[in-house]
């Protein structure tokens, strides 16, 4: 259940693709992450969960080196990301993919060109091969027929699937998903869930999902981390967390409105407030 319990199962360092050690991050005077430890094992689907505004996306941005921690180490594939200069950081990023909440497709490029973009930027392969690779990746996400559409012609779910095709086009070692299910209909959620799991297993990837959709991620994740108030509240397999005795974990997983995480924002006494005292 505790972090240490999980770490003990990962005896060899190479079992871990990402290791966040005692990582803190502050924005001005606001502490967003407060000494968290997260281990992401290779080849697994790991989900970081927690209420909105608790620093889940910040954790992803630390892994990709978009922001630097106030303290602690973020080790990705043996490299401490905060220490990397721009060039080695970009080399590392070529081996990562990230699917953004909005899809983040380039609005002036067609679906085909969006997926081909990383290939054109980072490889010298001939046009015929680019075409074949793009079509294969679009086929994998079920959107081969939509290759000539522009992003403005796609639904939210289709945009995310195109973004997923673009993310896997360079065959990365790891994919990071930022809130992949938010605002999607049940069919799209099912499709994206299936794609994440299938692509992870068939391409031998490591997947990191940031989400607060308990039911969805519990079905496809090997490991869950629940963070709140900048700290890791609990971690373990979905089954372990479901049987947890922690009131906080129960409240989060069952979606109870009140509990250790208070419903009310801190305020003075209600009666006194009404009486104007």
């Amino acid at each position, binding site marked *: 259940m505790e972090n240490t319990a999980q770490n003990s199962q990962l005896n060899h360092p190479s079992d871990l693709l990402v290791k966040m050690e005692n990582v803190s991050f502050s924005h001005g005077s606001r502490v967003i992450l407060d000494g968290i430890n997260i281990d992401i094992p290779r080849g697994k689907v790991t989900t970081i969960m927690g209420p909105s505004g608790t620093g889940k996306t910040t954790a992803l941005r630390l892994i990709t080196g*978009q922001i630097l921690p106030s303290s602690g180490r973020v080790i990705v594939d043996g490299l401490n990301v905060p220490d990397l200069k721009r060039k080695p950081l*970009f080399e590392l*990023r070529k081996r990562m993919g*990230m699917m953004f909440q909005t899809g*983040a497709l*380039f609005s002036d490029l067609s679906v085909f060109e969006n997926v081909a*973009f*990383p290939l054109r*930027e980072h490889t010298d392969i001939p046009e015929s091969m680019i075409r074949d690779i793009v079509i294969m990746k679009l086929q994998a996400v079920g959107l081969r027929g939509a290759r000539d559409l522009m992003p403005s012609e796609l639904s939210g779910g289709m945009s995310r699937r195109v973004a997923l095709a673009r993310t896997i086009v360079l065959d990365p070692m790891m994919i990071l998903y930022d809130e992949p299910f938010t605002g999607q209909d049940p069919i799209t959620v099912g499709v994206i869930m299936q794609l994440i799991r299938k692509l992870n297993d068939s391409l031998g990837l490591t997947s990191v999902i940031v989400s607060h959709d308990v039911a969805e991620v519990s079905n496809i994740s090997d490991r869950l981390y629940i963070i709140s108030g900048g700290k890791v509240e609990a971690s373990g397999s979905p089954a372990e967390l479901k049987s947890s005795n922690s009131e906080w974990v129960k409240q989060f997983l069952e979606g109870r409105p009140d509990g250790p995480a208070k419903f009310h924002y801190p305020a003075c006494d209600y009666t006194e407030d009404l009486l104007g005292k």
Partner: protein
Amino acid sequence: MITTMGNMVEMVRSIGRKVLNSVERMGRGHIFIFHTLMSVGIVFKEFSLLLKQLHSVGVLSIQIIAVSGLTVGMVLSLQGYNTLVDFGAEQSLGQMVALSLVREMGPVLTALLFAGRAGSALTAEIGLMKVTEQLPAMEIMAVDPYRKVIAPRFFAGVISMPLLAAIFSAIGVFGGYLVGVELLGVDAGGFWSQMQSKVGLYEDIINGVIKSIVFGIVVTWIAVFEGFDAAPTTEGVSRATTRTVVNSAFAVLGLDFILTALMFGGA
């Protein structure tokens, strides 16, 4: 008494915060332009990116520049004629229209129109790319947004501005001719010959071109920086777009005075 002191302290604090924010933004702006200038290689390596931006920043601005140039030239001619005719000097109308346009109106009005049309569009476009996470996505794909997004737009703006100013002045002169010669009956020979003999290549035309290049650099710098630095929200982009137009106008008018003083001040 205590409240008054408190208010004063808060006022000083607020002024201090604003000054610090401005200095910080200026610092960010200079780092930004340094990175942009360092990315000049992309303009030669991927010429198509520059061509695309030259079209959207420059070619699509021609319409408003041409119409404005024509009307400004016509008004200049009309006003100039009414003054010059009192002294029997209407033959100098061509010279007056051309000098006003080439030295001042062309570069300044083109820069102001450019800021309103292309500058605001650049800010909004880059700001929205930030809101829709296209710029972070590019960074995660190990693609430098300075090279792919910022540099082509910046250099397109710098190249477009003097060309647009030249179009503005040329069409303005034609507008002046239409009103002065065709409508008010000024002698065509006098109109053109006065212009030819009194408008100098170096002191007038080249100085005008230098002005428009400086305005091109400053206005496009402001526009792309505001977009890149915008808060990634709808309101943030809206504010950044407004700042582009307002700051560009101030910068152009202020720089125009300095450049005019340097170029023509002692003459």
